[in-house]
């Protein structure tokens, strides 16, 4: 196996599989593209979010005087998200961005912890994280142009015009660093788990990996989802307030 050769370990079993597998070929304008593991896992995550949304809507609408446990939980989570956005963006602009930030947070969080359920996390594919970061980049630039008008362009020449290339590079470095941060963290967890399951004898595969799962999937995933949303909000607020 490729990874066995690269690691110099002949004992890597086929289970040490963290590659993006090509599942189903599609002919796309003469090129062969593949439905990969990432597509399937993204679809599963999205369907899970959709089902949760419908269940939450139904539970909240039907909650009368005595809301069920699920409805209370949904209201708590939404209240936490709203206060999270309001506290870092301010109340009035926070109302506009709560939809995007909430969706982003739920998607990234569920993607990151989907490794617990045996999926390959969609965020461990650079395509996914780069797309999310590009959406954020467009929103940042839109906020800059909207709130600063021409100031968005003249800011590139601050403090003197010689800094123009550096400022442009620093603008474009934002999506690259954000996407690489999320991708690297999730991929590191995926690779570690795959190597653990691939290298360790069957006897040690019960019980012990739960601690690793708690760290790499739950803790790291939640922190990264939080950080990604927080950075999005910080950059947007920065463009909005920085006169």
């Amino acid at each position, binding site marked *: 196996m490729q990874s066995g*050769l690269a690691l*110099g370990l002949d004992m890597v079993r086929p289970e040490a599989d963290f590659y993006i597998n090509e599942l189903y070929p599609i002919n796309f304008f003469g090129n062969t593209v593949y439905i990969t593991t990432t597509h399937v896992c993204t679809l599963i995550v999205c369907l899970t979010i959709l089902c949760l949304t419908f269940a939450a809507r139904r539970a909240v609408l039907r909650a009368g005087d005595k809301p069920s446990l699920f409805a209370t939980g949904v209201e708590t989570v939404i209240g936490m998200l709203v206060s999270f956005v309001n506290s870092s963006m301010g109340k009035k602009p926070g109302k506009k961005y709560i939809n995007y930030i909430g969706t982003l947070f739920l998607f990234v969080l569920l993607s990151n912890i989907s490794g617990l359920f045996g999926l390959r996390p969609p965020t461990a594919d650079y395509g996914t994280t780069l797309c999310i970061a590009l959406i954020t980049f467009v929103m940042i630039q839109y906020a800059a142009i909207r709130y600063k008008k021409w100031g968005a362009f003249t800011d590139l020449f601050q403090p003197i015009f010689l800094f123009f290339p550096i400022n442009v590079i620093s603008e474009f470095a934002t999506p690259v660093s954000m996407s690489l*941060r999320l991708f*690297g*963290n999730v991929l*590191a967890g995926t690779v570690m788990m795959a190597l653990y399951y691939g290298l360790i004898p069957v006897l040690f595969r019960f019980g012990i990996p739960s601690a690793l799962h708690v760290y790499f999937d739950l803790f790291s995933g939640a*922190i990264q989802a939080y*950080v990604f949303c927080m950075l999005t909000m*910080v950059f947007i607020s920065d463009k909005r307030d920085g006169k």
Partner: protein
Amino acid sequence: MEINITGLIGAASAIGAGIAVCSGIGPGIGQGIAAGYGASAVGRNPGAKGDIMSTMLLGQAVAETTGLYGLVVSLLLMFVKPFGK
């Protein structure tokens, strides 16, 4: 002596991956400093624990980026093998 070029490239890639992962030293020190100052800030003002915690985590995550660049480079060298296909 005959030199196996493929094996040489593989060995060089492995060494390069190992060197690239050394970039984890810097973020480790930085995160430790951030956590230390966070702990001292909580000790001075326990009421602001939530704010200190979120600020500390954000700063640590940003500081972690350079280490992750090294990690990504080493993973590329190990598993994607850009040189010597």
